[in-house]
């Protein structure tokens, strides 16, 4: 196995959604810059949208919504814990991004007059724009990468960021998951766009790769940012999604909702006012599921044949095309039977909730020269369009930084230490198989961290995660592919520890099920209307601290602030 070194100006890690956009925008900002897009899988089919996407969940389109309205909606949906500046920056640039994607060839649904066919799914405003032909989106991105002559390397697994002697970012370490070669990529600025921590909880099936998120997104980015000294935020605000039972596909809100589909209990009755995914909605889902009215179903069997056919075409050809095959295997036809639903495993993902690397409105992290975008960057409820907009910010910021700075000085000991750590599982003669360690780790995540959260259980979980840290020294890989899984276990363990520590730190309940603490059941605005940040402190330990909220840019009235706190449908008391 060899060690390969190279130098670029801007390095983008992650070729899914935000990453390609960042690389293109860096190149557009300054075509003379050497921009490298480093991808763990293959850029053509990587990331959360490998098979496409069926709609925009947060389109701020003039005539339907204003940026200010959107900021109010997300502030309410995320229970007040937002840096409004970052949400506003997204909202103000949302429409321009839609138009640019439209010019690039992404197909959005339009009405007969050529206007975008917007749908209302959120509690207050109208932000959903369907993309019934959204299966081509990765192809569109790939064409832009080629057109702008972005250099691409596939099958390189980034393991740790390189930090210069002066604390500036200096590049990344990576290895080739086919050859095992060790790579040292030096860069003046780095964009981290590695997606969610999707392999944190274990799906109820016990199948390691049956996750909601693309399992390639194992939390590598969260772990790398942490070890580079970056602040992370909102880690305790877990991602938990309502899914089809045993299948990793979402079902209701964005696609079937506008067609008349909805979530019901076992009696076929609605129980939530709004199907937009929020922690409060998930809490009601959990209550119904575990109460006497469960399980929970997606109801479509009341709809007309042509409506159901249209839903099937969208759901079975875009984001999760194997869904039709799953239903066929169970004999489920939307026309005849309601579809049984369940709760996903836990994950970290700012695209859906709020956990991520702390970024400002220019996608800058707290480490000089390091930028972040997409599911792993903390801009709550940012979804795919947010990944594109912040990908743009990150690419432009990284280009500016590379123009103004040279390469940071890196000491050789850092290179030797990381190579030794990465190659260790291959060089051991025997040891633990990565899949077995991963299974145990993720089962412990379920046992101890799955909400409702219990203090004593989370403390025990931390003990188990500490014990598994020792097992990392025993991991054995028979080939570079197994080495990839072994190094992912390192990242998953880091994420598990972060999830436990941040959850223990915030001694209140907030965001519905995402942070429901049984022994601190009330929301406590007096003490906890703050961001919980997590970082590696000067002693090298994982530590949490409070970061005060920036004053709001957009005033919230009391009705709006409380909009997401009452999602259960009120039933009238039956007179005795």
């Amino acid at each position, binding site marked *: 196995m060899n060690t390969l070194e190279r130098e670029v100006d801007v390095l983008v890690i992650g070729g899914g959604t935000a990453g390609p956009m960042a690389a293109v925008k860096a190149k557009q900002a300054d075509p003379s810059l050497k921009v490298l897009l480093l991808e763990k*899988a*293959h850029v*053509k*089919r*990587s*990331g959360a949208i*490998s*098979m496409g996407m069926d709609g925009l969940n947060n389109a701020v389109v003039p005539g339907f919504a204003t940026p200010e309205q959107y900021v109010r909606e997300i502030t309410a949906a995320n229970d007040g814990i937002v840096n409004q500046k970052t949400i506003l920056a997204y909202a103000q640039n949302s429409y321009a991004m839609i138009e640019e994607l439209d010019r690039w060839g992404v197909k959005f649904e339009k009405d007969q007059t050529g206007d975008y066919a917007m749908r209302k799914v959120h509690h207050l405003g109208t932000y959903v724009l369907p993309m019934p032909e959204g299966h081509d989106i990765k192809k569109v991105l790939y064409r832009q990468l080629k057109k702008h002559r972005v250099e691409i390397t*596939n*099958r390189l697994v980034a393991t740790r960021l390189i930090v210069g002697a002066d604390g500036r970012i200096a590049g990344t370490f990576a290895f080739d*998951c*086919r050859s095992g070669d060790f790579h040292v990529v030096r860069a003046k600025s780095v964009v981290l766009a590695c997606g969610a921590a999707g392999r944190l909880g274990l799906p109820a*099936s*016990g*199948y*390691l*790769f*049956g*996750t909601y998120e*693309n*399992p*390639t997104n194992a939390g590598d980015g969260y772990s790398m940012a942490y070890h580079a000294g970056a602040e992370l935020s909102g880690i305790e605000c877990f991602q938990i999604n309502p899914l089809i039972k*045993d*299948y*990793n596909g979402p079902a209701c809100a964005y696609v079937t909702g506008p067609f008349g589909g909805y979530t019901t209990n076992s009696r076929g009755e609605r129980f939530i006012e709004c199907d937009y995914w929020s922690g409060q909605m998930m809490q009601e889902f959990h209550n119904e599921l575990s109460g006497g009215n469960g399980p929970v179903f997606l109801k479509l069997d009341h709809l007309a044949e042509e409506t159901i056919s249209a839903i099937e075409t969208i759901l079975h050809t875009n984001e*999760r*095309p*194997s869904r039709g*095959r*799953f239903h066929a*295997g*169970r004999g489920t036809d939307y026309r005849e039977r309601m579809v049984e639903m369940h709760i996903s495993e836990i994950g970290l993902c700012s695209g859906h909730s709020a956990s991520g690397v702390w970024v400002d409105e220019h996608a800058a992290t707290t480490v000089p020269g390091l930028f972040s975008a997409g599911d792993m960057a903390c801009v709550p409820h940012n979804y795919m369009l947010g990944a594109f907009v912040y990908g743009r910010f990150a690419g432009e910021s990284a280009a500016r930084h590379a123009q103004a700075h040279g390469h940071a000085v890196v000491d050789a000991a850092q290179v030797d230490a990381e190579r030794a750590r990465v190659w260790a599982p291959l060089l051991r003669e*025997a*040891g*633990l*198989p990565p899949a077995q360690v991963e299974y145990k780790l993720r089962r412990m995540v379920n046992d101890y961290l799955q909400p409702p959260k219990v203090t004593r259980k989370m403390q025990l979980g931390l003990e188990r995660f500490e014990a598994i840290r020792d097992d990392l020294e*025993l991991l*054995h890989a028979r080939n570079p*592919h197994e080495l*990839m*899984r072994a190094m992912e276990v390192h990242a998953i363990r880091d994420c598990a520890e972060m999830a436990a520590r941040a959850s223990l730190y915030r001694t209140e309940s907030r965001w519905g099920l995402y942070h429901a603490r049984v022994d601190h059941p009330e929301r406590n605005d007096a003490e906890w209307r703050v961001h919980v940040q997590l970082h590696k402190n000067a002693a090298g330990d994982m530590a949490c601290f409070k970061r005060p909220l920036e004053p709001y840019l957009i005033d919230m009235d009391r009705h709006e602030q409380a909009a997401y706190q009452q999602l259960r449908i009120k039933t009238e008391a039956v007179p005795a």
Partner: protein
Amino acid sequence: MTFPTFALAQQRTSVPVRIDDEKCIADKGCTVCVDVCPLDVLAIDLTRGKAYMAFDECWYCMPCEKDCPTGAVQVDIPYLLR
């Protein structure tokens, strides 16, 4: 101090990705399914010149099936989820 021992056993598993050897043209140099897999679980058997699933780590996301130029790949839902 006692060192841990690592006695290992093999466990069989049914894999969800099936390749139709009649249709697969890996022997002519095609590697499309191997290239597009996000989890890198497919490989070419060099002795037979055919693709196969080398690791049971499938997300049943289907780029391998959609992008195969000859329709040789079939992705089933993994048995545990079926």
